[in-house]
């Protein structure tokens, strides 16, 4: 593995992703937690660039950093959860041991080829473009049914969120 732009980008985005994730699970102030979440999601968007999926990187930044992180910020403000909770953690020791064990098992699984075969060292030259994805999404041999179901799901989630979060007492009529 030689030192080039991709390797440097990988290291930088790894620092962003894992550092942001560490901030999310450790910070006391949840406002700072949302900022850390944005940093982590930005690192993941960088991975998508490195993996030659620029459309997913743009969607990641628009949907996650632009929408979900802002939504979480609003939830933090609406619930005043910054000040009330004194203890950050519950059952921290078993959780830490369990997640550490999970990480070691996963790391063992991806580095040691137990089931035979080996993971590829380099990616193939040809890569599908965003244009291919757009065609496949509306192709009847492609993903048109999940594409339509996704729009139904988003509509249902939007209506459901409005209905669930509406304040019954504050209604005018």
């Amino acid at each position, binding site marked *: 593995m030689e030192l080039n732009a991709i390797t440097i980008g990988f290291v930088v985005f790894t620092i962003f992703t894992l550092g942001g994730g560490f901030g999310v*699970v450790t910070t006391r102030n*949840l406002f700072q937690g949302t900022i850390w979440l944005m940093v982590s999601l930005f690192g993941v968007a960088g991975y998508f660039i490195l993996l030659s999926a620029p459309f997913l990187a743009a969607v990641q930044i628009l949907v996650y950093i632009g929408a979900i992180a802002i939504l979480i910020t609003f939830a933090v403000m*609406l619930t005043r959860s910054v000040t009330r909770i004194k203890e950050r953690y519950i059952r921290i020791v078993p959780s830490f041991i369990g997640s550490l064990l999970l990480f070691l098992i996963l*790391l063992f699984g991806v580095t040691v080829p137990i089931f035979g075969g080996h993971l590829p060292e380099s*990616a193939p030259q040809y890569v599908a473009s965003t244009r291919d994805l757009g065609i496949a999404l509306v192709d009847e041999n492609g993903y048109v049914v999940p594409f339509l179901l996704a729009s139904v799901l988003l509509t249902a989630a939007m209506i459901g969120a409005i209905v669930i979060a509406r304040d019954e007492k504050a209604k005018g009529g």
Partner: protein
Amino acid sequence: MVPLWMYLAVAAALFSLGVFGVLARRNAVAILMSVELMLNAVNINLVAFWRYSETSTDLLLNGYAFTAFVLIVAAAEAAVGLAIIITVYRNRRSVIPEEAVALKG
């Protein structure tokens, strides 16, 4: 080119961080943020396997398209989850999941 197992190792670390957050944090909003971390780890895995696989042309976009659908489902999950948290907070003045025991038998 970065070998595939490095992406998988980073995704494993991110997923474990998310698992720790879900299990250990007390605040429901923080738990939801940890769930987002886990979803992102899965997305890294999907895109990395898609990029490094030598598939036939029929399967050329499976990982790419599946990641897009995971993003959509994550957006829906965040919206509904935060609405539930706000409703629970309005009724019980608490964002700690252990205190929402109205349905406990």
